[in-house]
């Protein structure tokens, strides 16, 4: 199945990726070939097969609901590009 440029634009928007015009052209071609390739799966008979979400038969472990992490905000925020008074800065979202 071939993907259209509009479909690729929609996917890129959902994925929050800005692409150049060249990247769109390339993505239409390569994503279409990947989708064609994985379409082989439709041949498999999977009636009554349970989807496998985890490679081992285990249940999610729970831990006691107690505080185990200490506050290291300032330390962690050293990796942020824009911070003020402990807050992450982003472009204005409310007019």
């Amino acid at each position, binding site marked *: 199945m071939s993907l259209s440029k509009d479909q690729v634009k929609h996917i890129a928007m959902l994925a929050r990726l800005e692409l150049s015009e060249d990247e769109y052209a390339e993505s239409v071609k390569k994503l279409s070939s990947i989708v064609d*390739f994985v379409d082989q799966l439709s041949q498999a008979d999977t009636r009554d097969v349970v989807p496998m979400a985890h490679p081992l038969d285990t249940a999610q472990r729970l831990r006691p609901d107690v505080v185990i992490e200490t506050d290291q905000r300032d330390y962690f925020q050293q990796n942020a590009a824009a911070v003020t008074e402990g807050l992450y800065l*982003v472009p204005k979202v409310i007019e």
Partner: protein
Amino acid sequence: MSAKHTDLHTRSMTELAAGLDKGEFTSVELTESLLARIAEQDARLNAFITVTGEQALAAAAKADKARAAGDAGALNGLPIIHKDIFCTRGVKTTCGSKMLDNFISPYDATVVEKMADAGAVVLGKSNMDEFAMGSSNETSFFGPVRNPWNLECSPGGSSGGSSAAVAARLAPAATGTDTGGSIRQPAALTGTVGIKPTYGRVSRYGMIAFASSLDQAGVITRTAEDAARLLGVMAGFDKRDSTSIDRPVPDYLGSINQPIKGLRVGIVRQHFDAGLDPQCGERVKEAIAVLESLGATAVEVDLPNIDLSVPTYYVVAPAECSSNLSRFDGVRFGHRAENAEDLMDLYCRSRGEGFGDEVKRRIMTGTYVLSAGYYDAYYLKAQQVRHLIADDFKKAFADVDVIAGPTSPTPAFRLGDKVDDPITMYLNDIYTIGANLAGLPGMSIPCGFVDDLPVGLHLVGAHFAEETLLRCSHQYQQHTDWHKACPEDFK
């Protein structure tokens, strides 16, 4: 350091441990010697993203003191390289991406912490495909790594820096991660040993996530014995990884000397089909004959759905990747675009600028297969086929102890040859992906050469059968010399 120690780079970790124990050399001497070798040789390979010389020498001095005080850990004073996917506190951790080129990890991965606690000395961080997405190391933001056996060739990927460094004797061992073959394929292409343990055997905490239901940490070494030594340190329960398995760690080193008489070795017919280079097939068959000469029995087994493993993987892995990589938003850490107009622009441009082509492709593939209207046809279907593949393995392991075959369809390919065609690149992992989908341990060991390039024998075991894989590999290496071969230019 005296002249008699000019051969330290040629020694395995086990041999180095013996030398340190005997006081033949100190860890500081060993570390200095390898750092000098890295400085001299790595320009040809590009195996390192960061060399941590100062920290390494400090750790070595500490290890020498601990040894003198009679307090030496299992890896005391022994050198290792960490793939740059493992977070290392205070050190740049890039995952091979421009996105994290400015990221100084504020914490250590559990693997890093456990090795440090055992006294290991970290020489640096190895190059890799961006976010571990690639099979040639060509998707790295820091440029491709070269294969020490032929500098025009790829060392495999995604753990290509680790495999190249170990093959070129820049270190006796390096960590790696394997989501679809990223430890085993580079090991095969560089004539090294690579083990991917059972899913959940080694903690994923602090290992930058690609596809969380498939990712597993392991090691690349030159001998199975060294792999056993390291896995014994890395493995074990970690409460900080919700999928870590709470199960005792066996004495891997203690069991590798047991003979393999009576071992049942499964051979999968599809693994020797037309897709395999015939000469590689010969090397693998010769290796299986060696195992038979040691008392193993070869049995044919059937994995009827294995041909669907690559398409299954290329739905599941991108889907998980698209979710995992949504954390890179240009706000909390990582690359941030300049002068964003609004929040959407900040996200889209930070990610558009920070990620390379292959990573974007996988994020978009994953976004597509998870999007409204396509989820059932792709993601759900792939998870069902994954179940069929896992069941095939389960049935096979009722009859055999290991499955043996080729690790990779060809020896190392030339850089640039496959990079423009994603499907051809994806098919490189055709023999390795099944183990990830089923969560099984897999291992590659060198088993000969085709046109002066190494070939790997691939062994897969049942869940938690790492001991069997390590023992089988060690016994093979006791009777063959392929693992001792060294690239001519790196002797």
